[in-house]
């Protein structure tokens, strides 16, 4: 049973490290919490002639990861470079307006073309 919980702790610890490194927010609390619980259970389940050093170390590692995961929840999460992005949007809008002007001029040109054609037809008549 103790071995099972130690194995589970290792598994959850690996997941915890990945989740703590990645900005997973509150999701990271799940593997770190489970790692801590299974590490505590493993350390409680004592076996004669077996050292308690490994489970105790796992409890410390899981606790540290849990603290980091909780601390990361308080780090400000905001959109960076908002001004640059806004400038990019304004540039895109200006380009679009120029393109729309060009399209309108093309339309006006094709309209005048069709008027010329009609004039030619009426002259022939």
């Amino acid at each position, binding site marked *: 049973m103790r071995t099972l919980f130690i194995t589970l702790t290792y598994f959850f610890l690996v997941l915890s490290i990945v989740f703590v490194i990645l900005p997973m927010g509150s999701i990271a*609390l799940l593997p770190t919490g489970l790692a801590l619980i299974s590490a505590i259970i493993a350390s409680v389940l004592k076996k004669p002639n077996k050292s308690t050093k490994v489970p105790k170390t796992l409890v410390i590692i899981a606790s540290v990861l849990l603290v980091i995961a909780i601390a990361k929840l308080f780090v400000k999460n905001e959109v960076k470079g908002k001004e640059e992005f806004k400038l990019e949007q304004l540039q895109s*809008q200006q380009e679009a307006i120029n393109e*729309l002007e060009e399209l309108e001029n093309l339309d006006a040109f094709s309209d005048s073309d069709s008027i010329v054609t009609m004039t030619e037809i009426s002259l022939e008549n």
Partner: protein
Amino acid sequence: MSGMMTQFAEITLQSKRVKTSNNTYQHLSLTASTYSKWDSFFKIRDIYESYVNPTSLTPTLYKRQVEEGGYRISEKYIFGKNSIKATVSRNGRQPSNQSVTIGNSTTDIVTAFYKLRKINFNNMKVGQITSFKIVFDATEHVVSVRYLGKETVARAGNLGKKVCHKISMVSQADILKGKDRNLVWLTADAQKIPVLIRFNIPVGAGQATLKSATFN
């Protein structure tokens, strides 16, 4: 598990009038940017915009500038009567031009979202489906909207508690399977503000909640 989510990105929808020397257009835009924590892992800076007729919402020009995890797409559609002239450039490569035949009522994805807000859901029965065509990635797609009735959303950003129309956006394949994988809650008032969006993607599920809505 719905509470176990991580804040990933911010989406801004904006609608405003713009003028050229001869015309007035409604500029519809959607921008998406990842939060700082995610920027070093998967940075997103997307701009989707459409220039449409203010009354008919017929698009003239659609632009899409996508930057997702180092991958870049720049796309432009010029709408004709039954076709679009598409210019697409991927990762800064030479742009390619193509003409795509589309239906009379086909719009781009941004306009489609605004057209969705023009639907009078009060006249729709629960389970009723209405479809419209959109052009995305230079291909025409049929998107169907299934009306699922009214529901109250407790936290609708700065709007507080709101009674909403619950609708499901479904592809043709999902209609046959009867699946409602992408849900949108629009306020059941004249504004029809999107206050909650739930969607499924291959790697999991996502949710967009309204932060704030402002009107001029």
